[in-house]
């Protein structure tokens, strides 16, 4: 449970809404057809692979993580299927399907 007040929660919602909109609107709204500096595009290309693993890793491997072997195994399978098939849907279905199936058998 969070200790944040109603005011703090709505502040977070509106700040995230405004910030996310500005990020999405940035180029679309202001750049038009002008080309972007190559180094900016180069850095931007790496945002998903730079940010998302840093979000996931502590959930699976961090000190507070619920790191049982089943979860780690299914997470590894998700990663392999995702890299292999390049298909988000298959990766999710395989990872979660395996987790729930094996979880039911192993109790």
């Amino acid at each position: 449970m969070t200790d944040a007040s109603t005011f703090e929660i709505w502040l977070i919602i509106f700040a995230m809404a405004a910030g996310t909109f500005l990020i999405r609107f940035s180029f679309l709204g202001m750049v038009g057809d002008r080309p972007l500096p190559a180094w900016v595009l180069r850095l931007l290309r790496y945002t998903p692979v730079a940010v998302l693993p840093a979000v996931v890793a502590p959930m699976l491997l961090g000190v507070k993580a619920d790191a049982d072997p089943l979860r780690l195994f299914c997470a590894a399978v998700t990663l392999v299927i995702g890299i292999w098939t390049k298909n988000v849907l298959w990766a999710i279905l395989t990872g979660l399907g395996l987790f729930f199936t094996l979880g039911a058998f192993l109790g």
Partner: protein
Amino acid sequence: MSASPATQQFMKGAKDGLPFHLVIWPFAAIFGAIATKAGLNVAEVMGFSLLVIAGSAQLTAVQLLSDNAPTLIVIITSLTVNLRMGMYSAAITPHLGKTPLLTRAFAAYMLYDQPYALSSIKFEKDPDMTLSEKLGYFFGVAIPIAVAWYILTLVGALLADQIPPDLGVDFAVPVTFLAVVSPMLKTLAHIASAFTSVVLVLLLGFMPYGTGLLIAAACALVVGAQVEIWMEKRKAMQ
């Protein structure tokens, strides 16, 4: 009577977006349930899904809220997760940049992963599409998934108590992130960037409230870009 080309493209986009509904429905419901269990009321949970529409960032924010991170850290960290959408904005600008300002603003509001991914593939494949056809396709993907996102968030928030905590829904969060990120690990630079991100965030695990994440992500961006430059130089020398 036949539908206009833009309407036809809207239907095409809606059809191409169908597989994503399989992921978005449980994802939205899981977000609604996790946010409710973190102590948010229905209006607050819906505020996130209606105003932000960014699953990963919303989950990050709720995760940090549960850890009682300071408000500013919650905002900065969740927005960092959304920085990739600056790239989407840049990538979609050559296609939708000539539409009226309000249309662009609405497209920006809906510029989340799936419409970006499907539209950029489609526009690349069919360069002869008109501006209105492109808009039709984009919103054909974006609107139905967004509506599903709102409705299933509400369902998840209302049914949160019926979901037992040991069901493993929390595991769906890292799995979804892994599934989104793994197809992107296509070059040495991407792998190096992701690897840097994981190693640094674990090493910086002692830092409070996800500040380690910001440093790990910033270093990983630079590592990705530098490895790319290095690979290009190496290729040019051969």
